[in-house]
């Protein structure tokens, strides 16, 4: 359907985002929360739901959930309550999920999107942030006729962030998700990777005639594996709903699955209608009563959020708005830049290098900035060596390449490769004389007053010295050697 065909309808979107908290151990037991272990090895009586086992809540999980809630401007409830959500599924060991239901950890927050674009910023309300545990993993395609269950992930701590239906387009939903991801990453709450499953998005979408205020019947869209998939799924589902409504039909409240390869949403085949979760307060966990002083401390200790960092960096390092925006898109990148800028005492060079050489190198290596071999202190030292004329710019690039390969500090690489600038007169004189001898025509023209050839000759000397010659000294020495 064309955009024009949907023009008289408005999309209404609310998002439910599940985020895995960055803890060492699971939410309710001390099993490792790491990915990648052989199946069913990060398990214990509690997360296997053995008869008699009981949950005990991870303090750090609460702290990270609080950080997220406070970063999203939520009001934290002094008392919140865990509940049991009862349903049978083979990767849900207890037959219920421990989650928060009618008394969540935090409520009534917001997030402002589109602040940097030219149009008006949109404030998206956060209905609630609550804590829960993840289920295990069901693998349906490994053995014929059977489902394989791995409970390593069972019990890993999650928060669910539920937004108000405040978004009006797929683009707004995308902007919300990108900003949310950025904030959670800055706050150190989560790895927020959709690929690794540490961030999952379900979307509630409905359509209504533009100008009306009553919400239409919504569907819940699941199974999107990237932000752009969310955007495409929303557009597709919206178009489907509008087509239905235009034809005089009604939208059915149901769960839709996004099929990325076909580019369409289809009703889920799971028997959603029979769900009666029989929520009741989890008797194994007393109400979570927070020490509000602790909550205050957690709030004060939240790492700097993107907005604040953007403004601070622009001012402190004299960056353009565009550069600051680009740099702070990723928490890791901006931290890296700041460390380099401080170590090098040269923010401008730091910016050029981080946006240029460093970005190129991590993209080429396919690693994240945290995994990058060159530590910011070492890059800072490298830039200082350039500034102090110990290395030429050309040599610095070669040193950097070696640092990327070896992780060694710049001084050591420069020494090993013999790349430090050579300012020693006798060596320089030797190279200059050789160049004059090997290029008699240019040498003659230069002697005859064609001074613009100075640059060419210096370049040749630099080349001969493999970049090690100190160009300032070569420039000084060249005229007198030419005369002699």
């Amino acid at each position, binding site marked *: 359907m064309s955009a024009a065909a949907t023009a008289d309808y408005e999309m209404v979107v609310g998002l439910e985002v599940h985020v895995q908290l960055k803890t060492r151990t699971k939410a309710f037991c001390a099993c490792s929360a790491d990915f990648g272990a052989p199946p069913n090895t990060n398990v214990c*009586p509690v997360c*296997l*739901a*053995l*008869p*008699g*086992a*009981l*949950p*005990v*809540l991870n303090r750090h999980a609460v702290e990270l959930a609080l950080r997220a809630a406070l970063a999203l401007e939520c009001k934290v409830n002094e008392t919140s309550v865990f509940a*049991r959500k*009862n349903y*049978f599924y*083979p990767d849900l*060991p*207890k*037959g*219920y999920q421990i989650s928060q239901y009618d008394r969540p950890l935090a409520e009534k927050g917001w997030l402002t999107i589109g602040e940097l674009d030219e149009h008006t910023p949109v404030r998206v309300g956060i209905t609630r942030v609550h804590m829960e545990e993840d289920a295990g993993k069901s693998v349906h395609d490994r053995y014929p006729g059977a*489902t394989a*269950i791995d*409970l390593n992930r069972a019990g890993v701590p999650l928060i669910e962030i539920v937004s108000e239906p405040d978004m009006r387009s797929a683009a707004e939903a995308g902007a919300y998700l990108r900003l949310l991801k950025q904030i959670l990453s800055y706050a150190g709450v989560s790895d927020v990777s959709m690929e690794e499953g540490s961030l999952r998005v379900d979307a509630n979408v409905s359509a209504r005639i533009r100008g009306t205020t009553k919400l239409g019947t919504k569907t819940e869209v699941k199974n999107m594996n990237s932000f752009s998939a969310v955007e495409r799924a929303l557009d597709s589902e919206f178009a489907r709903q509008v087509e239905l409504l235009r034809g005089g039909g009604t939208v059915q409240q149901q769960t839709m699955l996004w099929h990325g390869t076909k580019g369409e949403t289809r009703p889920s085949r799971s028997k959603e209608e029979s769900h*009666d979760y*029989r*929520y*009741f307060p989890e*008797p*194994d*966990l*007393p109400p979570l009563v927070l020490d509000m002083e602790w909550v205050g401390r957690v709030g004060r200790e939240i790492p700097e959020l993107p907005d604040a960092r953007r403004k601070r960096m622009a001012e402190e390092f004299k960056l353009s708005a565009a550069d600051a925006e680009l740099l702070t898109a990723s928490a890791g990148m901006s931290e890296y830049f700041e460390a380099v800028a401080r170590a090098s005492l040269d923010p401008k060079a730091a910016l050029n290098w981080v946006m240029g050489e460093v970005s190129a190198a991590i993209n080429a290596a396919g690693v994240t900035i945290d995994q990058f071999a060159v530590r910011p202190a070492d890059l800072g030292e490298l830039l200082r060596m350039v500034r102090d004329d110990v290395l030429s710019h050309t040599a610095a690039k070669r040193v950097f390449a070696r640092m990327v390969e070896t992780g060694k500090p710049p001084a050591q690489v420069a020494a090993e490769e013999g790349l430090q600038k050579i300012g020693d007169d006798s060596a320089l004189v030797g190279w200059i004389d050789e160049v004059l001898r090997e290029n008699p025509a240019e040498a003659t023209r230069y002697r005859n007053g064609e001074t613009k050839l100075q640059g060419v000759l210096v370049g040749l000397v630099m080349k001969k010295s493999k970049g090690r010659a100190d160009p300032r000294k070569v420039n000084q020495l060249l005229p007198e050697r030419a005369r002699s």
Partner: protein
Amino acid sequence: MKPPPRAPDLARKLLAQPLTECVACVREGGALPSDLVSAAFDRADDVGAGRESLNIFLATDRVRATESAKELTALIGRAEAPGNLAGAPVAVKDNIATLHMPTTCGSKVLEGYVSPYEATVVRRLRANGAVIIGKTNMDEFAMGSSTENSAYGPTRNPVDIRRVPGGSSGGSAAAVAAGIVRLALGSETGGSVRQPASFCGIVGVKPTYGRVSRYGLVAFGSSLDQVGVLGRSVEDTAIGLEVIAGCDQLDSTSADVPVPRYELEKNARLDGLVIGKPKEYYPEGLDPRVAERCERALDAFRELGAEVRDVSLPHTSYSIPVYYVVAPAEASSNLARFDGVRYGLRVASESGLTGMYEATRARGFGPEVTRRVMLGTYVLSAGYYDAYYKKAQSVRTLIAQDFRDVFLSGVDVLFTPTTPTPAFELGAVKDPYEMYLSDIFTASANLAGVPAISVPIGTASGLPIGGQIIAGHFEESAMFRAAFGLERALAGKALPGEGSA
């Protein structure tokens, strides 16, 4: 060191002595723990504890019990502290997780399941020198008041084998009553320790909710469940509770309240103690034999210098309806894990996963468990939650307030009958709700979370009758003090109409 002469009959005699004497003898090297283990197993043979007769145990492990007894002997040889239960043979209810022996909860769904970890209470027993000799029979998942609901056949009452031992901790009560062990662990949700203790003529303690860790106790009604102790005497149960009580990092509901030493002074009077007699526990239709023994117990209290005061707990009559909403609701969720996926019974089905779930649970659960899971699922389901579950939890608040008010009014403990009648015959109670009424005097303490003890207060036609002492939260000391005084006052005092009549 050359051990002094020991004889198996010394061990047999010790088994009939108070725990303190038995343990002291072991610590001083006067008796070998392995002899006590042998004496316990011999006694079990003598009384007919086996399947065909009393049917007390679902599992025993003589070999391993003997091994642990020998390790204990080595410990004593190295002069290391063997603990407050050194060498004492102990029986453990089958819903408490133990290594090596199965933990079936009296259910087919866990037939042959051996727990790969051990309950905190069992770890504490072992750390204090107890030797676990077996797992005791019980109503399936502790749902019942007669031990007739065990998937492995009923336990019989050692006092009268035509009668039930009570339940659900019937096997543990019978093991103590038959003289096989001095001490056994049971569990309580609505009276499952006190009621069988009363039926078998022994002492049974339900501690304050949170006093004892539930880690490793297979959950029935999580907000009500508590591990309890059964013993021959008040003192024995106090020693047992001291060992298993205390905060546990593995149980969020275990309380961080220090466990005192339960000092029981011989010949101590109860001057100044105020004993409440709640009228709701003495209804008009109460079995006259029970009423009579209670009055005599109250007289005994008065003789010891205590003041008996008439009090009221106005919401008492709601305790059974509240209990039979809350406990099944929690049970329906707690028993969802028995799904044939990770452990226990799995019954294959042609209709895939759902068929497997349904067949496994249909075959695995007995009729009473099915009934309660269905009841609990119903009261939690959409449309009924407020009318049943929420309502029941609100009335529960009022029941708890009754206790708080009465204890705030200056009453130290309450005294009531433990059960409305003495032990009934096997098969005598057929209607489920009539069976539920066995808990009528005990369920309130679980709903309010307060501690309570059942003490023998006499017999009628040879059948034991129990009196119940209820105290405020974490006031087990007052409870034991009153119980100890009563026990001593009644000792050897044959009441009219008692004996073989």
